[in-house]
């Protein structure tokens, strides 16, 4: 049952992602992107990362995706037509960059699978032996909160400052100029 669900989510994510990049209709592609994100959230659940899964929906669907759709709706038609009329030559620059990125990422993944098939890394085997593993019924969110406030306090605070800077920047950019 769980394996079937996993493959259902995985294939949903891959198929809709492929559709997103190949669709001509930008509006539909944006709404399809929602399905990709949702399926990704489902996959996070299988890694017992329920907090990450929900954050994925909250941040990406509730925030980023809506912003993208807004930007799409408020931009003018000529700009969009310009974006869609890319040169169809295979060797044009954007294609090369994305190809390079894709190959690099594939290499990393393949290397990971190849390495881990032989034997798990030492830290994983050690943790399994000492029983420091997450089970499905554990209260992950409490652990997460405790770790944020103790072990990882500095990174957490740095991120907070970073977000505050972004917020102030956004407020400054959107402020009306004083005409006087």
């Amino acid at each position, binding site marked *: 049952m769980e394996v079937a669900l996993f493959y259902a989510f995985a294939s949903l994510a891959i198929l809709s992602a492929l559709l997103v990049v190949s669709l001509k209709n930008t509006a539909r592609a944006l709404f399809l992107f929602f399905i990709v994100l949702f399926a990704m959230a489902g996959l996070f659940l299988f890694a017992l990362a329920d907090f990450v899964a929900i954050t994925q929906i909250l941040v990406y669907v509730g925030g980023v995706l809506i912003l993208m*759709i807004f930007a799409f709706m408020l931009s003018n038609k000529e700009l969009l037509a310009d974006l869609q009329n890319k040169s169809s030559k295979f060797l044009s620059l954007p294609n090369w960059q994305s190809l390079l990125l894709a190959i690099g990422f594939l290499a990393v993944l393949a290397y990971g699978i190849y390495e881990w098939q032989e034997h798990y890394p030492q830290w994983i085997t050690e943790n399994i032996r000492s029983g420091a593993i997450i089970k499905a019924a554990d209260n992950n969110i409490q652990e997460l909160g405790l770790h944020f406030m103790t072990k990882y306090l500095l990174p957490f605070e740095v991120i907070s400052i970073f977000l505050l800077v972004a917020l102030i920047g956004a407020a400054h950019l959107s402020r009306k100029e004083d005409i006087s």
Partner: protein
Amino acid sequence: MSTLILYILVPVAIFLFIALFTLFAVYAERKIAGFVQDRLGPMETGKFGLLQTFADILKLIQKELITPAAADRILFALAPVVIFVAVFIGFCVVPWAPDFMPANVHTGLFFLMAVVSIDAIGILMAGWGSNNKYSLLGSIRAISQMISYELPVGLTLISAVMITQTLNLNDIAFNQGILAQQDIYLLGIWRVNEIGGFLSWHIFQAPHLLISYVIFFIATLAECNRAPFDIPEAESELIGGFHTEYGGIRFAFIFLAEYAMMFLVAMLGVVIFLGGWNTPLPNIGSLRLADWTTGLGWGIFWTLLKSLTIVAIQIWIRWTLPRFRADQLMTLCWKILIPLAFVCMAISGLWRILILV
């Protein structure tokens, strides 16, 4: 096998409840509107017009499904489904009675917030898919309003969660009555674990949560797009807002989602701030009122009673207050509600550190 049947039965039961509640609430809405405006409301169909909403839904189901020629067919057809399902999933983590809820998860509240925000995508889909100026304007208004008002809702919920220290809605409800697993104090001073009743509700455990609840109530009114925050479907300017082009069963689903959302936020407010399924009657000496009125049946009864009271207040407000202007709406949210919610959150933190220790 039996769990599988349960998995199917529970959503069906919740759906039936939502449908029944909507029929009842629309009738109540009309009757209350009639009362406020000094007229009778529906009187023709059935005794006191009781069958009026059944007649309405029968009419909606019979209607033909019309898709405008210029509409994006797929998005247009999917939007009502997305809108309804987003609200419908929200019901799966809210407790009705002690340990009586569809899914008992540690991240309940967070999950609910995330899932309900999907609603916005559905509204945007409806607005864009209709290919109609009024629909698009309505949906853009709806989204800007929902996104803005999600902030005070989230902040007030955080201020309550900081007191109770859990995101599990079941535990939150437990910690507001005689079944509490941790020590609870009235106003932070008087231990009320044995007394229970309304004294142990969150709004009385810490007085600033009362302000939080008022903010939460106002902001959730805006989240449901109800008057006085109904500029997304302001009839005088936008015809019908994002659901202008919808008719028949599709419109019925959008309508259903709106009323389900009303009940969901009412119930969420009840669970977080007003004690959930806990009884309002305290134990007084040998008069064990709280002990007698706690249990499965009583829990469902109290949840329903409190939530329906909140829904009644929502309806009352709709027919009493005039509609806000768009800029007034944003001023209220960003300049009044959000700063106040931040103050409540700060007080919650201090309260937890200094008073509850």
